[in-house]
């Protein structure tokens, strides 16, 4: 198992995205790279093609409070050690480009995030609900309700 060469990765990514976005070790055990949403396909294809970073552990979404509130979506990759791509999305209309074309394994993770947090993934096949009931008509259940906030 070849470990991920983090320095080489930063060198390559440095040309692609702003160096300031790289936040190392803000999450324990992980190398964290914050990228803008539109760079996601580009960066993940670099990870996949140049660094053989094929294993997407999961996609974690979380509602964060700030000014204004935002959605944080993490793509948790792994190759000997963890690497997280961190994306901030607007809470009102979160849209992301799907990775299923590159990584078919992302399918279930994306569907879960879409159902639980209401993130819309583009460039992917329309699918019936995976976890929620077929006739679910409420808000995405993992989002905090107004009254409980």
């Amino acid at each position: 198992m070849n470990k991920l060469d983090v320095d080489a990765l930063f060198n390559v990514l440095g040309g692609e995205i702003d160096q300031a976005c790289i936040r190392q070790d803000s999450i324990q055990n992980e190398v964290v790279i914050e990228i803008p949403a539109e760079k996601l396909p580009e960066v993940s294809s670099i990870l996949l093609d140049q660094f053989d970073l094929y294993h997407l552990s999961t996609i974690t979404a979380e509602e964060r409070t700030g000014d204004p509130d935002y959605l944080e979506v993490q793509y948790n990759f792994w190759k000997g050690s963890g690497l997280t791509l961190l994306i901030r999305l607007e809470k009102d209309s979160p849209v992301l480009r799907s990775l299923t074309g590159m990584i078919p394994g992302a399918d279930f993770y994306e569907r879960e995030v879409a159902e639980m947090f209401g993130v819309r993934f583009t460039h992917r096949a329309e699918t019936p609900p995976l976890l929620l009931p077929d006739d679910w008509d409420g808000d995405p259940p993992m989002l905090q309700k107004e009254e409980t906030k």
Partner: protein
Amino acid sequence: MDKMNIPIGPQHPLLKEPLRLNIEISGERVLGGILRLGYVHRGIEKLAQTRNYNQNVSLTERVCGICSHVHTTTFCRAVEALLGLELPERVHYIRALMCEMERIHSHLLWLGILAKHIGLEMVFMHTWHDRESILDVMEEMSGGRVAHAVNQIGGVRFDLDEDHGPMVDSTVKKLKVDYEELLDVIEHDTTLKARTQGVAPLSTDDMKRYCVVGPVARASGVDVDMRRDDPMPPYDKLDFQVITHPDGDAWSRTYVRLQEIRQSLHLCKQIIDDIPEGPISVRAPRKVPAGEVVMRSEAPRGELFYYLRSDGSDYPARLKIRTPTLPALGILPEQLSEIHIADIPVVLAGIDLCIACADR
């Protein structure tokens, strides 16, 4: 012949847990299937936000009914990492011992289910009988047969006393004999091989594309094991092999799991021999400092992923659990095409379904 749709699940003799597979068939041939989860979705990730860290140990134990211990271990390790606790060595050894015994019983359970699905009820009963002996040891040590409740934040709840060592020892010896018998059966039994060999094989590349983990991936030649590649203590000090097999069919999955039982028996023996003396817990504060942590460990079904964020209170702000069954379910549509109806149970058994895990 006309195309037909047959539903498998949510209630079906094939499934022990609810999931729905809508399978399109033409005669005896399967054309494809659509998967639907969520019948046992308990909202554990949301529930975790309303419970304090101590309560969450018991909650994460109930994510899965088979690999309950590894869930609490991963959760406790995540919390301990945020707290910055240094644990005594003995704690790691006891946790690893339970992990390995859990792996043995999980794999034996799986083998029994495969045998039952292909009509070998006797093998099913006999493997479960073997499994019972390891469950007995776990119950004797921890007080629970399935929900062991071994872990607490900052350590473990029980200590090994002088009876437990010999008990594990004799069980390991007995299981080694049973293991040889099982190996003979799966390596030489004609009908079992006829039903499992060459059934819906998947290549290493497929496994990598679908991000599959654990024995299913290793049976297709993906050489990944969190115990070796991202080890938690004390696995870096123990000696074991990662088993892989190139074929990727149902039989090689059986083979990999059976060999892993042997490695686990070997590990149990080492742990019992090497276990250091010392305290079994340290005091942990109730409030956890703010921070984020990702924790991965090797469950019986593969890589288990926990993400935990604390905002400084005694309730977690976000707990994300990704169980190893979820990516394995992703390969089902790939596998459920151009096979016989009779192969569906073998394919489903092959990926070691744990729906409650996948739904959470």
